[in-house]
């Protein structure tokens, strides 16, 4: 059995309590250990990526219980990719948090950060529906802590909303899981896939309800309309590096949709058919539109980026709703891209905030330290998130448009392109208001130490975007194989070695 599979969960799960236990009062030690753990996680992710690329999906039978009776982790290409993305993003964000001193502004940043990673990795790796819930909760509760890290009026007030909204989401998740269990009698995802495929006709209605509830849960995480409301306030109020890390949190929702609805409820399922895709697509398009409108109308940089994130989720879900290998591959490419791009912009927003004290886009302010560099980074991030060339966002959108030919083509293309324009205009407005200003009011820029670590972190993310762009060919063919593995389903199910009831 390949113990590497569980390492992304165990590693942070051990480091975090160790930090709490032994280095609670020593920030330097916390930083060293936490950073080392994240680096190690990157290494583990690389191992997993390599394993998954060359091997069929592999299950890890926790407690040595056979599936579907115990909990399994399943390493497949998708899971490995998501873990790797998380690890990389986490490393950059952590560098930024250390460089900018964000980790100093409250208690337990590093422990919560590691717990957050534990939750995210756990959610990506699990092959059990209820365990997915548990790790959703781990990642959520850690995210609550990170979101309100540092405290303060605005953050706590948005924090209440964020927590409340997600608590409702968690409750909904439980409703959904119980409903699924009551219909199928199992929780293992592979087993669910098999049972759902052969479900008696009379159970279809309840199953569909369960599916809708699940979709709603994932939609909350993924900020899909009409469940996107929590995002702008939360992301705009969260500490910069946390918002950047949250770039991958929305992707957890997207991941879950991909996983569950391509494994358990694929369009060829008799009981559900294309029902979910039909729900998903319009919602995704509206999400995209709303996000773009928000970008155009945002009054602060934080909210601008937050709406950009919503728009990117709309794009992503649009691609996902195709539920074909091509669309999934396109979606995954865009997923990688938008995670990095959103993170870049949130970090840039924090750089601006740290120097200016406000992200207000309306009032003109004196220039800021390192303005040229920050402006360039903003520009790069903006063209990435708006999906302008030459960065991967453009390639991603092209791929999505190319893959989504069909009856809904006009609606999809129209929405994607028009919203791109709105976002371009929005980002251009914001950029010019933020960084182009009257020389008459020119004052000496606030002296602000350029902290190398912060810029290195943003640079690292930008470099990743560039790398993704340059290596788009190999990456997208790899993602093609991820998507086809998902579409095939049988390797994943076979990895679970489902055992019959001993009766």
């Amino acid at each position, binding site marked *: 059995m390949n113990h590497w599979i569980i390492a992304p969960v165990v590693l942070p799960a051990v480091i975090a309590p160790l930090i709490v236990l032994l280095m609670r009062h020593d920030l330097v030690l916390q930083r060293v250990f936490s950073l080392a753990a994240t680096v190690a996680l990157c290494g583990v992710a690389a191992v997993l990526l390599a394993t998954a690329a060359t091997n069929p999906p592999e299950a890890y039978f926790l407690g040595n219980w056979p599936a579907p009776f115990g909990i399994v982790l399943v390493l497949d290409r998708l899971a490995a990719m998501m873990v790797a993305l998380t690890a990389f993003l986490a490393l950059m964000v952590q560098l930024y948090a250390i460089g900018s001193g964000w980790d100093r502004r409250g208690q337990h940043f590093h422990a919560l950060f590691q717990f957050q990673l534990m939750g995210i990795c756990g959610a990506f790796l699990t092959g059990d529906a*209820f365990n997915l819930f*548990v790790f959703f*909760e781990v990642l*959520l*509760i850690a995210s*609550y*802590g990170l979101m*309100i890290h540092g*405290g*303060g*009026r*605005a953050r*706590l*007030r*948005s*924090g*209440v*909303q964020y*927590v*409340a909204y997600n*608590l*409702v989401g*968690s*409750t909904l998740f*439980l*409703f959904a*899981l*119980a*409903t699924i*269990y*009551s219909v199928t009698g199992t*929780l293992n995802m592979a087993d669910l896939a098999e049972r759902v495929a052969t479900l008696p006709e009379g159970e279809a209605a309840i199953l569909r309800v369960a599916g809708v509830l699940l979709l709603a849960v994932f939609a909350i995480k993924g900020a899909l309309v009409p469940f996107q409301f929590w995002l702008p*306030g939360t992301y*705009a*109020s969260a500490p910069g590096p946390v918002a950047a890390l949250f770039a991958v949190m929305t992707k957890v929702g997207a991941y879950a949709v991909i996983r569950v609805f391509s494994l358990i409820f694929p369009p060829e399922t008799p009981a559900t058919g294309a029902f979910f895709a039909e729900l998903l697509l319009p919602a995704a398009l509206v999400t995209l539109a709303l996000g773009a409108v928000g970008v155009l109308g*945002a*009054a*602060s940089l934080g*909210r601008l980026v937050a709406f950009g994130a919503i728009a990117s989720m709309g794009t992503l879900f649009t691609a996902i709703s195709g539920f074909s290998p091509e669309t999934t591959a396109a979606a995954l490419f865009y997923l990688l891209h938008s995670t990095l791009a959103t993170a870049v912009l949130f970090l840039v927003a924090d750089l601006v905030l740290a120097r200016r004290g406000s992200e*207000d886009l*309306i009032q003109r302010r004196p220039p800021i330290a390192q303005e040229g560099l920050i402006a360039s980074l903003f520009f790069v991030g903006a063209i990435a998130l708006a999906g302008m060339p030459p960065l991967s966002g453009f390639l991603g959108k092209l791929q999505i448009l190319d893959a989504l030919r069909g009856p809904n083509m006009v609606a999809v293309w129209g929405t994607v392109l028009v919203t791109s324009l709105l976002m371009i205009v929005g980002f251009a407005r914001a950029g010019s208001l933020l960084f182009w200003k009257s020389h008459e009011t020119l004052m000496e820029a606030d002296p602000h130490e350029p902290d190398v670590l912060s810029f290195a972190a943003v640079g690292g993310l930008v470099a990743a975007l560039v790398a993704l762009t340059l290596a788009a060919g190999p990456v997208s063919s790899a993602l093609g194989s991820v998507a086809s593995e998902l579409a095939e389903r049988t390797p994943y199910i076979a990895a679970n070695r489902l055992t019959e009831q001993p009766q």
Partner: protein
Amino acid sequence: MEILVASAVGTLTAAGIYLILRMRTFPVIVGLALLSYAVNVFIFASGRLAVGLPPVLSKTAQGYTDPLTQALVLTAIVISFGMTAVIVMVALGAFLEAGTDRMDSDDEAGQ
């Protein structure tokens, strides 16, 4: 018995949702608590009802109820306790910082 349980779950859900639609943090938290009662019973009942058939193995037992849903509910109870604790604290913090316990934060939409 089923109809009692179902109506109880429905009532708890309705009450919970009504309260989370209120404007202050406190009723919302109470509503979330009710909702979590509702969902706990919901999960529990999804394993079907049984009276006098506890999930503890014994020679004299005439049968057993579904132990799995019970384990799931236990997990759910614990998690929602943690979550409730957090939201209570965050709500308290928000109240102390802002001087109001309004849930709707109309000041956050940007100027």
